[in-house]
């Protein structure tokens, strides 16, 4: 490991495996379409409820329906992309339980990349499609001037958010090296993080804000960049550059999680059965 040429050939192989897995999935076309549709409908139901709430109440912490829809879209796009990238990583608990993880350790390729392509699925494209739709509706309806700089930075923010959510799913995998039953708790940070990212951060209590800003920087991926995109004031009073730390926060978070993965691999003992 470590050699640039090695890593490049690893990625080449990984991409080929990913393509094969996708082709396998496409063989069951109706099943595939059904999953995407189901994925779409679940979140569509939530949007109906959100819209109903705005019919009964004036606004949400000073944000309009259009602005909250934009935030929903942004968070959904990041989450669905991160979830898609980390799909295989989410099968690590299963691999460990069945004793199949050992196999990845003896192959001449990073075990993380092998886990990543263990399962490749586009089922979250339903959510991605909906996220993009909401993002588009939000962008078209908010009263904001869209500039090239904003659009470029939005791309950076989405990539950062993708990395953050993929890293969160990796934490689930890391924990599964020690415990399999308790990993449901990580859902509070993955799905919970994505849900929380869909609302203006300042409506939450201090403990939650601290957790989802400084421990798991979801707030730096969705809320703070949106203050810049939508020209909103910051009631929390962070420095003026806070909307622009998304990529830095993502890099730091991924670095720490990467260290955790290496540590877990080093201490891994097979189930032995």
């Amino acid at each position, binding site marked *: 490991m470590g050699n640039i040429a090695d890593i490049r050939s690893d990625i080449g192989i990984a991409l080929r495996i990913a393509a094969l897995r996708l082709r396998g999935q496409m063989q069951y076309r*109706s*099943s595939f379409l059904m999953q995407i549709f189901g994925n779409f409908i679940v979140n569509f*139901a939530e949007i109906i409820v959100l819209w109903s709430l705005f019919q009964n*109440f004036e606004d949400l912490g000073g944000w309009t329906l259009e602005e909250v829809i934009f935030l929903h879209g942004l968070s959904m796009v990041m989450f669905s992309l991160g979830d898609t990238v980390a799909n295989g990583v989410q099968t690590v608990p299963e691999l460990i339980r069945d004793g199949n993880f050992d196999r990845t350790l003896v192959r001449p390729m990073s075990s993380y990349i092998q886990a990543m392509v263990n399962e490749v699925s586009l089922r979250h494209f339903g959510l991605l499609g909906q996220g993009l739709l909401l993002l588009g509706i939000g962008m078209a309806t908010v009263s904001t001037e869209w500039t090239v700089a904003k659009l470029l930075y939005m791309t950076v923010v989405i990539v950062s958010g993708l990395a953050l959510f993929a890293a969160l799913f990796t934490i689930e995998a890391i924990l599964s090296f020690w415990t399999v039953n308790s990993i449901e708790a990580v859902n509070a940070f993955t799905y919970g993080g994505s849900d929380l990212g869909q*609302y203006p951060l300042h*409506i939450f209590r201090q403990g939650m804000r601290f957790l989802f800003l400084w421990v798991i920087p979801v707030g730096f991926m969705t809320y703070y960049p949106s203050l810049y995109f939508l020209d909103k004031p910051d009631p929390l009073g962070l420095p003026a550059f806070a909307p622009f730390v998304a990529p830095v926060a993502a890099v730091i978070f991924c670095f720490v999680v990467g260290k955790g993965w290496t540590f877990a691999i080093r201490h891994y003992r097979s189930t032995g059965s």
Partner: protein
Amino acid sequence: MRLYLELARRAFQQTLTYRGAALAGIFTNGIFGIMIASVFLAFYQSHGSGDAVQGWTRDQTITLVWINQSLLMTVYLWGWWEVTRNIQSGAIVTELLKPYDYFTYWLSRDFGRALAHFLVRGVPTFLIGAIVFDILAPESWLRAASFLLSVAMAVIVSFCLRFMANLAGFWVLDYRGIAAMFAAIMNVLSGMLAPLAFLPDPLRIVANALPFRAVIMTPNEVYLGQVPIWEGLGFQMLWIVILIVSARLLMATGERRLVVQGG
């Protein structure tokens, strides 16, 4: 009868075994409860005064959020596809030969599971809510007792709905689309995401008449005093009767089809 009680007891114990999972689940329900309650608090704040919105005061809505998070596992709102999997693997053929009633077999097991989930997931989650937020207590002991009865009936309604959704496995091979649709319908029409009173008019009227309401909304209404006790419990009872009959009819139809398929 003894057989079914034994089945319920086993399912109860089986569910209690996973302590780590229960702790993790309470944590997750707690975080989601705090998040959703905060969103509603912010909505009510924008409303200015402490007035009720569509007949729901702020404290009532917050209490509903925590009752919902606590009941989530007890009524197994989203997932349970064991019957479908049985149909697909073909195991159902041997299960139908066994000397018990298939529907009652699963109902007993589900009841045991629900009781365990109520104790290890529901009660602690509700306590978190009571500590962190201002939650209303039931008006009287009669309301509190009726609430428990209403939860038990909600489990039966939910079971019937889930059982029927599972039977779709007789007709379609891939249940994942149905599972997602079932979850979406349950989320909105049961009142899991928000009180049904907040929905726009045609949808609200329809939702109030459907059995999904009996799974989440009715226990809340009984607890909070939104409906007379007899009305809430009567609504659930009515749907239990209709759903048990429908589930059995659907099962009989599906079985006939299974025989044809199995040759």
